[in-house]
């Protein structure tokens, strides 16, 4: 076995027919048993690089230069049959969403056998069966016949992902590519999956490329980290170098954008946007957004400067970056108010058909307060939010706006009640009508709640400016906007009603961390300027530190802990909260 399992030299992947690179000048190497974290925001090209290790280029693209060497073999020299043999055999892949990558019509045994049949060569039936069971045991899943007879939909998300991992490791690959395998999972499950991946990589001496947007996860798992920005690796180093002493301004800003359990500092977003292929400048791609930019940055794309062995950054000012990246973190708002009730939930039980999902929920949201509702998927937090908003009417108990008990269905509530409670959805890609312009969407909200008022155009502009969008955005359709911009529009729509309570259902979970930080910042500002109460629903414990006054922790339809944010995070009393905190990955754990 050679010293490095994976070597990538100056890889360039470009769009067919256009002289535009998607990624370029990608060089990295991974030794057996090592985990390399490849970090970047959406569109940075990290998945493209991950796929290149499998000898795969997405349709419309092609390898324009450089080489990918797996165990010393150049993938460019392999034909289709060679690539097929390589994939799954030498290089295995763990996909992002096991729910779609497992065949729903096949039982687990058949599913796992397919892999072994394709790659295990001339082994006997009994050997394969043994290997199959062993691979399941390795990921801490049962390996008995009843389990093997199950279909993927009979497993939980975490189990499905572990089956995918078992499949990846079943043929004893030398290299494994993980494409955000824990993105859809709860922290508890995520912690277990990460542990499994790390353990297997070490015990089988597998070189792993772990592609992720989540810096905290990478901090927990990776030995070395490479940061991608706009199709280039801008910084690479060991985990400690990167999280302890990042050199590139982008990396540093990215780290500042990650919410953290320990730190009380506010998260800070990165203004501006990563340039798309074809629109990238001829010099440093980060220059337009960089606080350190000078004339030299506009001369050419910076070469890699090495600081310590293995720690490289592509920035002319990398030596000064540690000293000054001027970001002024807003201090957490803690305006003292007499607790005055804005929203109350009393003895709320909710059902889906005959299945009960919420049990005796009592919760108060005070005026000007941000109450965070934390829980894993299936805890009932979204159901609770929908009960509040009148979107889930199958409940008993009371939702009260100040002292008025509201009817369950939004349609039977008064206009005033509907105006006072506004709901912002998780996915901004679905919550805006794609056939209406941003302006039309917001104008409709204004028309509904403040009919008969004039100067609509101006007021739409004001609403947009309130969420830091330009008034000219009114003419855009949602699909012309980025995810962060769409979520701002959704918030602007909610705020247009001038509500007293805004219910935010996981509103940042579909967004990149730098965008998430900006949205959180915005919410905090709006709270003070508009005197808003927030019911902020999230699965991300680290996030609430920077925004919430109080936290309610939910599991299995019950609130198990409720208290001021600092107290809950530092001295959790409920065992469930303690476990949740222990499983939350953190970059502060490094160094």
């Amino acid at each position, binding site marked *: 076995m050679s010293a490095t399992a994976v070597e990538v030299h100056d890889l360039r992947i470009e*769009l*067919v*027919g*256009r002289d*535009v690179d*998607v990624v370029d000048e990608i060089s990295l190497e991974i030794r057996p048993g090592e985990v390399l974290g490849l970090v970047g925001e*959406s*569109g940075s090209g990290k998945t493209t690089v991950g796929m290149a290790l499998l000898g795969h280029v997405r*349709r*419309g*693209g092609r390898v324009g230069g450089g080489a990918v060497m797996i165990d010393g073999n150049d993938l460019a020299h392999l034909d289709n049959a060679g690539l097929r043999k390589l994939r799954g055999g030498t290089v295995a892949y763990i996909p992002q969403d096991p729910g779609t990558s497992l065949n729903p019509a096949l039982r687990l045994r058949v599913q796992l056998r397919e892999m072994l049949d394709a790659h295990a060569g001339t082994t006997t039936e009994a050997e394969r069966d043994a290997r199959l069971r062993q691979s399941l045991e390795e990921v801490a899943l049962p390996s008995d016949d009843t389990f093997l007879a199950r279909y993927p939909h009979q497993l939980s998300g975490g189990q499905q992902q572990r089956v995918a991992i078992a499949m990846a490791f079943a043929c004893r690959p030398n290299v494994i590519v993980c494409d955000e395998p824990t993105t859809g999972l709860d922290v508890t499950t995520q912690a277990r999956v990460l542990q499994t991946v790390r353990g297997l990589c070490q015990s089988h001496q597998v070189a792993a490329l772990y592609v992720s947007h989540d810096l905290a996860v990478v901090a927990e798992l990776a030995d070395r980290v490479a940061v991608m920005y706009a199709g280039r690796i801008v910084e690479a180093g060991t985990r400690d170098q990167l999280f302890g002493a990042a050199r590139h301004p982008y990396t540093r800003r990215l780290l500042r954008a990650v919410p953290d359990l320990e730190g009380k500092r506010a998260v800070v977003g990165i203004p*501006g*946007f*990563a*340039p*798309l*292929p*074809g*629109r990238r400048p001829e010099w440093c791609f980060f220059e337009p957004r960089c606080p350190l930019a000078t004339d030299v940055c506009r001369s050419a794309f910076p070469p890699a400067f090495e600081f310590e062995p293995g720690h490289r950054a592509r920035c002319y000012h990398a030596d000064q970056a540690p000293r000054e990246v001027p970001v002024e973190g807003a201090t957490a708002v803690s305006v003292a108010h007499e607790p005055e009730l804005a929203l109350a939930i009393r003895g709320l039980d909710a059902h889906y058909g005959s299945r009960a999902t919420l049990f005796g929920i009592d919760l108060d949201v005070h005026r000007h307060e941000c109450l965070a509702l934390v829980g894993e998927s299936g805890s009932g937090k979204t159901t609770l939010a929908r009960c509040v*908003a*009148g*979107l889930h009417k199958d409940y008993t108990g009371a939702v009260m706006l100040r002292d008025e008990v509201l009817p369950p269905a*939004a*349609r039977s509530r008064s*206009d005033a009640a*509907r*105006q006072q409670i*506004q*709901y912002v*959805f*998780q*996915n901004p*890609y*679905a*919550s*805006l*009508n*794609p*056939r*209406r312009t941003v302006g039309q969407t917001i104008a409709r*909200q204004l028309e*509904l*709640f403040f009919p008969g008022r004039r100067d609509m155009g101006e007021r739409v502009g004001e609403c947009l400016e309130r969420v830091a*969008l*330009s008034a*000219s*955005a009114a*003419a*855009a*359709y949602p*699909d*012309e*906007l*980025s*995810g*962060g*911009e769409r979520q701002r529009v*959704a918030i602007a*729509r909610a705020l247009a*009603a001038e509500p007293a309570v805004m219910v935010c259902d996981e509103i940042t979970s579909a967004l990149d961390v730098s965008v998430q930080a900006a949205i959180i910042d915005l919410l905090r500002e709006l709270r003070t300027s508009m005197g808003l109460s927030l019911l902020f629903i999230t699965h991300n414990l680290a996030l609430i530190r920077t925004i919430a006054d109080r936290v309610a922790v939910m599991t299995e339809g019950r609130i198990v802990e409720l208290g001021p944010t600092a107290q809950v995070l530092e001295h959790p009393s409920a065992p469930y909260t303690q476990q949740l905190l222990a499983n939350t990955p953190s970059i502060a754990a490094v160094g």
Partner: protein
Amino acid sequence: MSDQTVDTAVNLGLEAAVEPVPGGAVLQRRPWLGILRNALRLGRTKIGVAIVALIIVIAVFGPLAAPHSPTEFVAVPNSGPSGDAIFGADALGRDVFSRFLHGGLSVLWMAAAATLIGVGVGVGVGLVAAYSRNWLDDVLMRTSDVVLAFPQIILALLAVSAIGPKLWLIVLVVGVSHMPRVARVMRGAAQEVVERDFVKAAEAVGEKRSRIVFGELLPNVTSPLLVELGLRMTYSIGLVAAVSFLGFGLQPPAADWGLMIYENRLSITVQTWSVLLPVLAIGLLTVGTNLITDGIARAAIGIDRTSAR
């Protein structure tokens, strides 16, 4: 307009999160306009439009250009082409060409009206059913199923033989017989849209049901709607012509393509033109509308794939 579009796009930095689509996604202001524009770039649509335009010109301006009155006897019955009657005379001695030029308008307007009724009602029923998701959905769709159980032509003949050969009745019955077919397609298309969050957002702020159905859902199902319009038009032409052929449409001595085929069918071996002309016209018209529909459907697939998520 398009310059401005690109401009806003750049200002907003819209390129942030999306992966590039090779060739570039077209930004569609009004999706149905974009579909029509793209459809017109396809050869089949161009041919279809040319055919349909030709038939429409014949049907609309034909009566002005006709050398004779459609009811005037000009030659010996079933005589062949001559200087006075270039396509000869029909079974009663009337000028075939003049009758042909006069006979198109009725088919066209009846088919168009029936299509509008059928698609209009069908869209309403389909969207309301998709949005209601309760007993109303069942009632509407099962009622549609009952209508669907009868072949369209039987339904038309049943109504006409019960009430009499009235043109409005034919239009109405053909339209109504289209309704369940359109409703099914629209319901299917809208069901996926109903589940999206922007519909829930509209409910949360108390939008009226009618506004949700026609303001939120309808703009998101324009491509199947366009395809249905074309498809139902094709069927309407065939049905209306068939009803006339069976003698329940326009009554003699009026000129009508369907009726012409009926009147002259026995003498087809002697005087081919009197049958061939209307047959060709009806055939071409359905082929033309079908080509247009096909073009629209193809264009809609391309557009729905790139935008409208």
